[in-house]
């Protein structure tokens, strides 16, 4: 069984993101970049399936500027077998990414695609669902548990109010939620080994896909800030304020 894991290079989740002065974007110069945390969970889950003997091959794919190859190397250092780098200089939306991934899936024919439920930069939560629509595959979004049985995959999904268990025919798309697993750190020997693993390169323009953005970003601004209130000295004062000043209890 072959698993494809798309990985995205994003601003590290520990970085306090700031809006640029000209309000065109957030500040990305000299900011630490990392693999999208939900994608790390996806890589980890693929590795666990391989360790269980269910999967035989894991391919990590990333799309963008040459820097995204670092993110592919991270996935290889965690244990993925090979990578695909799609060189693309234009700005990408989930719709375009899903189209490029569709073309890759048609070429390499994975049995399963595991990917993050959303990227922590644009918070779109869209690529996985769009990809499954384009491939006409089943989808299991927000996975917190998964198990492969024969030609099917059983997935526990995080939904409002609890967990929903579904069964999806393979090939399928799974998007990962936080509690699926805790990703491993790449060990030093594995980081060294990853340098020798193959990364295939292709150009987005050679795929003949319309990747023109459909959303034009007019402005990126700071959210409205909330003023700090007062510190109270005791529980009694707190209750008094809530009752008589805020009138919320």
């Amino acid at each position: 069984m072959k698993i494809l894991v798309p990985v995205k290079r994003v601003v590290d989740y520990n970085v306090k993101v700031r809006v640029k002065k000209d309000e065109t974007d957030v500040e990305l110069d000299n900011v630490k970049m990392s693999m999208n945390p939900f994608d790390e969970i996806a890589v980890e889950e693929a590795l666990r399936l391989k360790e269980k003997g269910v999967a035989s091959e894991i391919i990590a794919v990333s799309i963008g500027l040459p820097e995204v190859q670092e993110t592919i190397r991270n996935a290889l250092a965690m244990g993925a077998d090979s990578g695909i780098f799609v060189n693309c200089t234009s700005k990408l939306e989930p719709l375009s990414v899903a189209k490029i991934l569709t073309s890759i899936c048609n070429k390499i024919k994975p049995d399963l695609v595991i990917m993050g439920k959303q990227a922590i930069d644009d918070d779109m939560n869209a690529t996985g669902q769009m990809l499954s629509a384009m491939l006409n595959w089943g989808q299991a979004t927000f996975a917190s548990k998964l198990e492969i049985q024969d030609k099917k995959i059983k997935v526990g999904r995080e939904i409002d109010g609890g967990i929903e268990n579904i069964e999806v025919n393979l090939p399928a798309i799974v998007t990962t939620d936080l509690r699926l697993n805790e990703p491993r750190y790449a060990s030093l020997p594995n980081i060294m080994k990853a340098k020798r693993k193959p990364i295939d390169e292709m150009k987005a323009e050679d795929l003949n896909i319309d990747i023109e953005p459909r959303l034009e970003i007019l402005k990126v601004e700071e959210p409205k800030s909330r003023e700090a209130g007062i510190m109270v000295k005791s529980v009694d004062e707190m209750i008094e304020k809530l009752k008589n000043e805020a009138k919320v209890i």
Partner: protein
Amino acid sequence: MKTLVVVDHNNNKLDKSTLNTIKAAIQLENVDLLVLSDSCKDICNELINIKNINNIFINENDEFKNQLAEDSANFIAENFKDYTNILFSNTSNGKNIAPRLAGLLDTMIIPDVIEIVDKQTFKRPIYAGNAIATCKSKNKINIITIRATAFEEAEIGDENVGKIQEIGSLTTKNLTKYLNSELTKSERPELTSADIVVSGGRGLGSAENFQILEKLADKLGAAMGASRAAVDAGYVPNDWQVGQTGKIVAPNLYIAVGISGAIQHLAGMKDSKVIIGINKDEEAPIFSISDYGLAEDLFKAVPEMESKLN
């Protein structure tokens, strides 16, 4: 220009977020609703008096009972591709179905919208709410999910406004099969629509210690919430999680206990009307957005508060 709102529900009851989504849709003109369920009647009864809507389209089919994204998205794509806007609530159903529909219709989804600037321009949070992007759409069809807490609820009148009409037929592709659900049973109000939310963080230290918060919540008739740190530590179930990766809430009163106030968490609750923070660390960032802060040991303050409320 025609706008469709896909109604979110559990086959018996309307999900309240739908009312906010309809309110948002009314800004876009000519609003029709769509109910896909194995039993549409009760849901339609809740919708029929909503002001400023036109048609309520229904399709009653056992296959819709579990709202599988594959079936719902195919059905909507086949029957509503002449619409200008298709709106969903940004709930787990909306987040599952809407992007798949967008993929089928070759359109870029506009998720988690918090403001409609004009008919093609929308505001949405990015980077866990650290920035707000204004996007102008070049889509032919806008598929939008609405953040419920950012919009009022649609008004309900006395007259039957919506005209109920059956539409379409489903051919299921059987890509996915529903097995079962493990829903958290709770007597408490639903987290995203509760008037008061009591939320705990890693400061609680264990699953058992959350009981002191639950006592306070029950005294106040509040819903329980938690920070991602508390969920990750395994103290409470994930569906309690408030924050960018969990639920977005905006109650009248939000009580944050033992929560430091990571930006991720603040993104999920900063629109609450009144926020109080209880944390023994007086430097905790939660105090910078709290209306009332109390720098005290929660294990002392929370039971005291609970005993003094009546």
